[in-house]
């Protein structure tokens, strides 16, 4: 069902025309944003993005959290990486994400251990639900690039996702061109996601 909303919210960009993507946030009934005091922003990897692009995106998440919830204690991705390495949790986190990608349900206790190591109530993680590129041709139609970006908050106490928001952007080039790079589309989708951030912490 959530996918249907994401697809409905997916913006279509054709040629020079663009539509602002719309995010679809979903909160777990047990999510209590007012009780959150600290958030760790985790790094992420995406094949089609440079490390500069991914750093830029996690920086945007940090900035947005600072803006919407100024009283939060934030753990930046570099610091989070160092702490997870020190606790020997990075490979287990990679296995967790890989299992999740394969459709399995990974052990939530790992997330709880990570939250302990990071001293954070929530773990913020960016992931790409879809990355698609197809160059244009006479038989297969125009060049298409599309991404769906999701930001989710893992609850450190339960290890489960308590809030998530996704937005998609698609760019279609009517001529037989190579598909556009996805960095700009990813940023655009993330901006929409960050616009849907809830206020965290006491008001």
């Amino acid at each position, binding site marked *: 069902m959530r996918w249907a909303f994401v697809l409905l919210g997916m913006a279509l960009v054709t040629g020079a025309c663009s539509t602002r993507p719309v995010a679809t946030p979903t909160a777990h009934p047990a999510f209590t944003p007012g009780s959150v005091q600290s958030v760790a922003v*985790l*790094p*992420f*990897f995406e*094949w*089609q993005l*440079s*490390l*500069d692009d*991914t750093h830029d995106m996690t920086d945007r998440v940090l900035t947005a959290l600072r803006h919407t919830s100024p009283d939060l204690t934030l753990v930046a*991705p570099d610091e989070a*990486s160092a702490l*997870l*390495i020190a606790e*020997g949790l*990075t*490979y287990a*986190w*990679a296995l967790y*994400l*890989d299992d999740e990608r394969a459709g399995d349900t990974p052990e939530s206790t790992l997330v709880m251990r990570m939250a302990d190591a990071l001293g954070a109530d929530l773990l913020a993680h960016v992931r790409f639900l879809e990355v698609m*590129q*197809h*160059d*244009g*041709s*006479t*038989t*297969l139609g125009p060049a298409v690039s599309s991404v769906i970006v999701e930001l989710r908050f893992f609850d450190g106490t339960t290890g489960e996702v308590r809030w998530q928001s996704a937005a998609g952007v698609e760019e279609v080039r009517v001529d037989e061109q*190579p*598909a556009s790079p996805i960095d700009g589309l990813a940023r655009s989708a993330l901006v929409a996601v960050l616009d849907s951030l809830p206020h965290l912490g006491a008001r």
Partner: protein
Amino acid sequence: MTWRSLLALVAIWIGFTLLPVALATQERTAAAPTRVAVTPIVHDELPLDSGQAFAERMARHVRARNPGLAVVGPRTATSILETQSMAAEWGQVLFTFLTTGIVDGVALKAVCNALDVDAILHAEIAALIERGPWTLWRRHVLQELRVIIRGWLFDCTSGLPTWERAGTGRFERIQDSHSPAFSLSAIPALLPTSLAVSEFNAALPRIRGSDSP
């Protein structure tokens, strides 16, 4: 003032002027790697030989661009890692980085120690993007595939990627429309002799030169 004292003054002035430059150069040289290992591409659709051959070409270009640098080639690196039972460790470092974006500096350091290097250069196939087919003339079609290669230089001391580049290769094939379907798995085998290699290799880091990463 005699010409000797004037010459001495000029020499002292030049000495003081160059001192900060010399110190800065020394510092940069000390921080730059002296021994680099080049490891083979690991990709499901790429035969092991092609991954090795691609990395061999990378290693040759790194040697050519950095005459003062000791380069451990991919075959030697693979052999050392297997002999020292560190191949799985290196696989975990890569898997962790390519899944989470985190370079486990502790595990990387252990791999570097086994290889006796202070940096590792590694490339992977980041994407395969299809284009076509186009009908060219009766019963003949053109198909194209773009291959995006991404490479990183991991610094063993800081545990961070200090250099990153992406390069695109393009493969074209004209075939009879009645011939068997275009097989994607056969394409990466062309990598070692493709344009992608020269384009990517041309951008490889000059580690011990003026444009060091």
